[in-house]
């Protein structure tokens, strides 16, 4: 193809300007978070004369972000492990069978992509209350595993349909049971799409706000978004403190994203073919 011409240079400049516009909110976020609390009246655009990290330490303590990070991590890890194993297990027969029941089950899962959570919100809240699970992270793990199942099954089914059956058939010929074939042959072959399933579910579960707000309120088992929501409500005028808290709360999920960013694009490419 063509080499780097002046036109390419012009395009590059335009894209970088677009990136700077996109980055403007993040710039303001850091300028504020590094500002000493008593440094009021300055323009929100000018970096503080004497930047400080005190806000981060204070926000960490006062929003009790430590326990919230642990809680979010526990709920996210458990939900994502359940989602990966169970949705891949379900997608396996759906992708391999051409019979009526498999199409019906797949259609049922796809209906789940459309149903807005608002419809199930209140009846499920009542069920969790009756089971005595309000305030318990287990309620959230069950909820996320169920609610993200359709999307995960969708991604795995598309990928499995394009996957060669030779390995599975060989394993079955050798006398491996279907379950054993699934865990030792199929699941490892699914690794590319598993990366996508993991990252998209981590983003969803970590960031979800309304359900933990309802299920965990007042329990001390808060997740990050709910802890931040309560924290901002308390310190609404102290933006430097608030912004430091917002940054801390975003670091874990951003770290996972930057570590796995290659998989995101590859996984979408695989999903498009499916």
């Amino acid at each position, binding site marked *: 193809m063509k080499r780097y011409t002046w036109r*390419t240079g012009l395009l590059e400049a335009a894209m970088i300007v677009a990136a700077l516009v996109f980055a403007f909110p993040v710039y303001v976020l850091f300028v504020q978070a590094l500002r000493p609390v008593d440094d009021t009246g300055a323009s929100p*655009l000018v970096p503080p004369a004497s930047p400080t990290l005190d806000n981060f330490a204070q926000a960490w303590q006062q929003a009790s972000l430590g326990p919230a990070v642990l809680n979010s991590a526990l709920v996210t890890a458990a939900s994502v492990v359940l989602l990966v194993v169970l949705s891949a297990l*379900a997608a396996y027969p759906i992708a*391999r069978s051409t019979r009526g029941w498999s199409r019906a089950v797949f259609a049922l899962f796809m209906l789940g992509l*459309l149903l807005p959570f608002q419809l*199930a919100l209140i009846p499920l809240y*009542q069920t969790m209350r009756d089971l005595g699970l309000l305030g318990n992270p287990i309620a959230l793990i*069950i909820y996320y595993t169920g609610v993200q199942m359709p999307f995960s099954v969708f991604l795995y089914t598309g990928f499995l349909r394009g996957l060669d059956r030779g390995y599975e058939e060989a394993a079955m010929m050798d006398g491996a049971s279907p379950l054993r074939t699934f865990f030792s042959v199929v699941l490892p072959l699914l690794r590319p799409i598993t990366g996508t399933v993991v990252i998209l579910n981590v983003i969803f579960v970590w960031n979800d706000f*309304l359900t933990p707000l309802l299920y965990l309120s007042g329990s001390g088992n808060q997740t990050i978004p709910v802890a931040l929501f309560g924290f901002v409500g308390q310190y609404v005028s102290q933006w430097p403190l608030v912004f430091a808290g917002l940054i801390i709360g975003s670091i874990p999920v951003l770290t996972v994203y930057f570590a796995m960013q290659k998989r995101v694009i590859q996984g979408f490419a695989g999903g498009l073919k499916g």
Partner: protein
Amino acid sequence: METAMAPKAQPAAPAGSASPPPPAPARRFRTDRIAVPWWFVLPALAFFAFAVLVPSARGAVYSFTDWDGLARSSSFVGLEHYRSLLSDSGARDALVHTLLIAFSVTVVQNAVGLLLALGVNTRIRSRNVLRVFFFAPAVITPVVTAYLWKYLYAPEGAINAALDALGLGLLTQSWLGDSDLALWSVVAVIVWQFSGYSMVIFLAGLQSIPREIYEASDMDGAGPVRRFWHIVRPMLAPAFTINLMLSLIGGLKLFDQVWVMTQGGPGGATDTLSTVIYREAFQFNAFAYSTAMAVVLTLFVIVLSGVQYGYLGRQERNS
């Protein structure tokens, strides 16, 4: 079957003892090459039914009763809630806002996402960094981005300060306080956060186009605009379908950002079906009425996405 077709020349077994073909191989022959047990779907189905299907069905049933969220029993009231919805001007406004948000987010987010994808799918040196960068807002907790933008939009906030600094002081606004403007300010936040998501899906589509096709069109002397319209656009049809579906459904269900930034204000100017449902249920305890509203939202999601999917499917087949 096999016995019937067996050649006659073979030493025929006595007719009386003609055993039926062994059942196991026959069944495998008729179905799939590999028999994967159907019960593998059960655990996934159980979680899905518990968290989504059963409560959704119950929600739909509650919308025809006077259930208050606490009582064990409730009585059937027919279409009463749906009738009051028709005369509830707040709910009607919320429906209009929901549709406005969903349509404008769908159009603008995908237009921006497509431009970004075309921009980074070139030979520019920063392409890999920019890809990672533009997707990053989609990863951040909506509660965080909503608070950040609430500050940016404040009267003495960063956007007005930036406009002043650029000598555009006339353009400063009360971005979330002006009831004519607030809805579009919310849309801008969603577009900022999720354009990168659309970009990644378009990019995946662009990268699946074989390089030879570009080279052939170069030799034919097609300019970039004609090449996009006649070659790239039809090949992006699957990416368009996924993107438009995701942003339409996401726009119709939107809650977190609106709730954190405006709680539906000022004066209901940014109320959506989601914020009204939440308020009716958890602040006014009108549980049954709020589930009727959720049923209406569900119907809109299913009908609109069905229409869109049908249209995009035809486009895909035509191209």
